[in-house]
């Protein structure tokens, strides 16, 4: 059912793009349809694999953590830029339906830093890990080595579903889907000029809850303005459309600490890991 829905939406998006030659007005609708349709189809496909492989698990969604701080290391393998090693700092604060997540990636040995503040408001939430929220975020990325900086403002609608509600074989898994828009202001400092560009946001992922309150997720992110950039599926074809793919893992180590690991692959390969300190967590 979900596969058919995804395929239908993707077909609608694909046909609208193909029949109009990716017309400037139509593509603002066609591309989100294509990306979300492929995302839903992909989620249902992976969910089938999950159900067949595990038959469902007893693991449930992690308990919310009111306050957390994490410190870690990031590595970005991108031959286009001088940076490689980063100190990664992030935090998360939850106040009822509101959540605030500041983060900083500061390059070690290069003049590059990316600071971001994301805020969200939960529009609908169940106690079983299903949630729909409105997100806004601002990002400042200084490429001082290169003589430019980007400032991005964005807004998106994000959903996360506990797929266990669809059937016992999917128990212990979840799906994420989000879509939004943003605007990137570009300050070409060395050239003394500015420019700007709007961007489309879309993300789809599938994950599994892990014993002990952890979770692992595989995702596709359509945006191409992050460290990861956009994927080149092969040397011969497919460059310049797709975003990045990634995996992430978060596993509590007792009530106070959690371990985090993430990797993204696009035009660059990004790996990060960190230790999270938690306050107010019950597990």
């Amino acid at each position, binding site marked *: 059912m979900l596969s058919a829905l995804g395929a239908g939406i993707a077909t609608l998006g694909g046909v609208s793009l193909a*029949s109009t030659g*990716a*017309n400037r007005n139509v593509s603002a609708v066609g591309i989100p349809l294509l990306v979300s349709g492929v995302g839903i189809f992909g989620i249902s496909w992976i969910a089938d694999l999950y159900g067949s492989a595990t038959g469902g698990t007893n693991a449930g969604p992690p308990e919310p953590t009111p306050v957390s701080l994490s410190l870690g290391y990031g590595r970005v393998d991108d*031959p*286009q830029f001088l940076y490689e090693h980063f100190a990664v700092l992030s935090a998360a604060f939850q106040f009822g339906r509101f959540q605030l997540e500041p983060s900083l990636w500061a390059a070690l040995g290069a003049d590059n830093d990316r600071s971001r503040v994301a805020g969200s408001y939960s529009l609908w939430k169940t106690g079983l890990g299903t949630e729909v929220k409105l997100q806004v975020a601002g990002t400042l990325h200084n*490429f001082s080595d290169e003589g430019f900086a*980007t400032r991005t403002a964005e807004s998106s609608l994000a959903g996360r579903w506990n797929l266990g509600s669809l059937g016992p074989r999917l128990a212990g898994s979840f799906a994420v889907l989000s879509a939004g828009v943003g605007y990137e202001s570009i300050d070409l400092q060395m050239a003394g000029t500015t420019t700007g560009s709007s961007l489309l946001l879309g993300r789809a992922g599938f994950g599994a809850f892990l014993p002990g309150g952890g979770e692992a997720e595989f995702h596709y992110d359509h945006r*191409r*303005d992050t460290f990861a950039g956009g994927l080149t599926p092969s040397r011969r074809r497919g460059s310049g459309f797709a975003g990045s793919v990634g995996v992430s893992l978060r596993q509590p180590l007792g009530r106070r600490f959690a371990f985090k690991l993430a990797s993204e*692959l696009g035009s660059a390969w990004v790996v990060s890991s960190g230790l999270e300190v938690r306050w107010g967590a019950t597990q």
Partner: protein
Amino acid sequence: MTTHCRYLPLLLCLITACIRPGDDRPSMDQDVGVASIPGFVVDVDNGLAVIREFSDTHLVLWAEAPVLSAVLDREIAGPLRLTVLNCMPGAQLQMNQSWYQSHSENGVTECVFALDLAAGPNQITIAPRDYESDDPYRFAVMGDIQTALGSSHEVFEDISAIPKLRFLVCTGDIVQDGAEWEYELFQEKLQSLAIPIFTTVGNHEVRQPPQRWHDLFGQFSVHFRFKGVDFSLVDSGNASIDPETYQRLAKWLDDGRERVHIFATHFPPLDPIGPRNASFRSRNEGVKLLTRLAEGSVDLMLFGHIHSYYKYENAGIPAYVSGGGGAAPEQYDGIGRHFLVVDVDPESGLRKVARVPVNAR
């Protein structure tokens, strides 16, 4: 464990392909225009022509620039028949203070010179007679022929009908799949073009191993100067410019800072319609390129890939997307098949850029 290890090279290969998908092409650029056989060495300056045939008595070049210089170093003095394909109409050859006139029976962009080489190095220059003057001139721009290759002669005929055009700059995607028959057909279609075409590659040329393009047309990224104006045609066939090519571009930008400089590549660094994102695979890299072009005082940016026409500014520099060569067009944009005519003045810079529709036939 053994099974998992089997997939490790595949994974590493995937990651390498993702991160530097076009890393084979810059190194191939380095060996264009140089060849030797016993007793005879040919070296074309800056690799601006590919050597297609080479024997003791006959040399065939495909020009990638309006002006060619080369050293023909042969141990034994004697005659040489030099054919330059994709040559500037009316080009002459200067060797050892003498000028040679071209004669050809195969169209105006084929120059044939009957030379009498001295033993040892012979320095030659092939150029139109006015190549060192700084008077204004005009050239054409097009991109994205792809599946319309069969009717590409219609565009070429219309371009040829524009008076005083010196050459055609192409932003790539001259073919759909990079198949051998497509390149053969493309060269047949060029018979209807009265001026030479200087082009880089798009994402459709790189669908095949790069050797085919390399053997026929030479460098994927090329820089030349004509009548006081610099041109940099840069390979972004994988929606990215390879770091090695950035190093070459840095030198070209530095050399051309005081002159009018025109930059052309296939992918726009940023799509003028942001959400569509038909642009570089990394926005950050796209901005990096814009920064370098702005710092290098580039006067005009030319792009293809999007099958329509957009006039805009990037980092304060006039920018044009012109993908009107005939490939599946953007619909409902009121544009259609077209090319650009650019008037440029080496003294004052860019004078005019006009979009010219291709006549329906």
